[in-house]
């Protein structure tokens, strides 16, 4: 398969003639790097490009005389390919900041390259909490969510309601391992037990063998430490094998709005999940979602899309204040400045690169409760920002003193 360099380069603002001296070559170039063709393409994909574009428009970059350009590429979930694109972007195409990058394997690679090249990296799509733990970097901010937060939200909620024995179905790469590790820690801390686990390859079609193993483990909860198409296939097939009817319950540790849409409420109803953004929460988020879906083939924004929007907005703010776009300096400025935007409200970026904001424990509605398109969740609880994410001192990040 050839490198599909998506050439959708969008020149947004051909602003004033006199470019600012300290912005490298006069243009702020944003590279959206994600999965555009496979199992994570709906939850990130082109939608993230749309979100970045909306952020640039809403910031009014053109009016302020800032020249911003957005390019995008498909990393096909391959760390080697993602690294190659990142290097080319930084070295040849003069990209200043890479955003999104779902798939923790690719994100960890880009994290290192960004640090070596002295650029900036705003993670929205990737989940591994290692990005602000042992792999933390002065050039990276992890924006939207992470595996610790998912484990803490969904894992905790389930253990508290009696789900004290677990079996994990884990996607066999960096993300799955991190999510499994963090959830296992929550489960054992709350007095629960992990009876077994099975690691499946990324992008698996048939889960029946794994589900059968989970079934024979007799665990009360089957924890799905995977995402996107893997999660939806596992949930759908679990219904077929009568797992829930047999008294076991599924815990989708990372479920996105687009996954619920793909499953249909009939299959997805009752699932408990944790996200940091739900479009139908406030008038501001609803207004955003309405504009977003018009530009994104009718698909409503996931938290990954919202994170791209919010992080690009804050990035532009920092660049304007600094009048420069040097990677580590912008990231430092972003950490200094409190964040505020219509989607996540008020928040801040910690020294380890973790952006903190509240998380929401959600429940998927029954088909009868859903009144309009994408009316999928009930908000069960809000986890305050200071409890939603791993305490800074526990991550083992070298930047925290």
């Amino acid at each position: 398969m050839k490198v599909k360099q998506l050439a959708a380069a969008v020149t947004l603002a051909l602003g004033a003639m006199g470019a600012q001296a300290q912005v490298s070559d006069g243009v702020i170039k944003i590279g959206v790097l994600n999965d555009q063709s496979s199992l994570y393409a709906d939850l990130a994909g082109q939608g993230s490009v749309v979100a970045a574009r909306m952020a640039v428009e809403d910031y009014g970059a053109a009016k302020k005389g800032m020249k911003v350009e957005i390019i995008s590429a498909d990393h096909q979930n391959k760390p080697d390919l993602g690294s190659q694109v990142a290097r080319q972007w930084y070295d040849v195409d003069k990209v200043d900041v890479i955003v999104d990058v779902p798939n923790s394997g690719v994100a960890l690679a880009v994290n290192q390259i960004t640090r070596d090249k002295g650029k900036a990296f705003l993670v929205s799509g990737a989940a591994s909490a290692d990005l602000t733990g042992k792999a933390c970097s002065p050039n990276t901010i992890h924006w939207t969510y992470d595996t610790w937060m998912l484990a803490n939200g969904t894992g905790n909620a389930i253990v508290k309601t009696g789900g004290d024995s677990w079996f994990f179905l884990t996607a066999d790469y960096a993300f799955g391992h991190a999510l499994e590790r963090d959830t296992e820690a929550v489960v054992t801390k709350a007095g629960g037990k992990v009876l077994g686990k099975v690691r499946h390859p990324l992008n698996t079609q048939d889960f029946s063998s794994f589900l059968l193993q989970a079934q024979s483990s007799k665990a009360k909860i089957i924890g799905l430490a995977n995402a996107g198409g893997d999660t939806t296939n596992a949930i759908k097939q679990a219904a077929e094998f009568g797992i829930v009817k047999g008294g076991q319950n599924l815990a989708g540790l990372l479920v996105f709005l687009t996954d619920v849409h793909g499953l249909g409420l009939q299959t997805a109803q009752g699932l408990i999940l944790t996200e940091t953004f739900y479009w139908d929460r406030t008038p501001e988020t609803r207004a955003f979602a309405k504009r977003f879906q018009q530009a994104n083939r009718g698909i409503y924004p996931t938290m990954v899309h919202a994170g791209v929007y919010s992080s690009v907005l804050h990035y532009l703010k920092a660049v304007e204040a600094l009048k420069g776009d040097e990677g580590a300096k912008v990231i430092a400025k972003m950490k200094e400045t409190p964040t505020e935007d219509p989607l996540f409200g008020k928040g801040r970026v910690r020294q380890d690169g973790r952006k903190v904001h509240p998380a929401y424990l959600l429940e998927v509605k029954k088909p009868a409760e859903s009144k309009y398109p994408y009316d999928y969740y009930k908000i069960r609880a809000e986890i305050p920002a200071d409890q939603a994410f791993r305490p800074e001192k526990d991550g083992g990040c070298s930047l925290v003193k």
Partner: protein
Amino acid sequence: MTEVFGVPTQALFGQLLIGLINGSFYALLSLGLAVIFGLLNIINFTHGAQYMLGAFCAYFVLHKLGLGYWWSLAIAPLAVGLLGAVIERTMLKPLYKLDHLYGLLLTFGLALIIQGIFRNEFGSSGLPYPIPQELTGSRNLGFMFLPNYRAWVIVASLIVCIGTWFVIERTRLGAYLRAATENPALVQAFGINVPRMITLTYGFGVALAALAGVMAAPIYQVSPQMGADLIIVVFAVVVIGGMGSIMGSIVTGFGLGVVEGLTKVFYPEASNTVIFIIMAIVLLIKPAGLFGTQK
């Protein structure tokens, strides 16, 4: 409870059965490929996309026409098979005289285009398709719960596979087909319309892919990627079975499904590579495949 390598025998039976179910899809798809390659000498890389079209067709039939699964089993193969016939007439026909490579490139390109269009239109998360009412539920076999729908998949695909093999290897029509691939001019001299027969054969091979797509729809998400993920494995199955061998593709399809199922128990991390390891070994020892004949 007795155990084999630390796995209870009961659990093992379950895994064997599941392997057979997945093998049914491999068999159905590789059968279509084998028919097309054996009789037309075309390496049909569009097969995965046509399988996906079958599943989407089932989805449209349900949501646009309001007709259920059983109708789809007839409508989808017909519609997609017809589309296949059009592709054969308009695009593949001029390529027969050229090297295999040209047909491969054309069909590969077509697959990318079709998948791209569907991804653009429907996204990558897939669409839900319910299991038909009559086949919901499952039965307890003692060692596992077998969903009724999966039992149906094994039975249906076995019937289709054996039926196809019978038609091609044991009937007069099949004899014509095989003769036409050996020496089209001679068969034409007997008054048989060879080009039409070839078009119909391609259409039939494609219809088999669409049928597999309809059967897969209730199990997997109906998604533009579903064929692309599967087609590489299916090609490996065809290579292991012997390019163009009908029986070879059926037996290897089911057999490799079982092998893959067992890998998922003993070493799950390798479950998506085991088929390719077998392919490499078979190619080293018997380059024409297990059931192929050296030409």
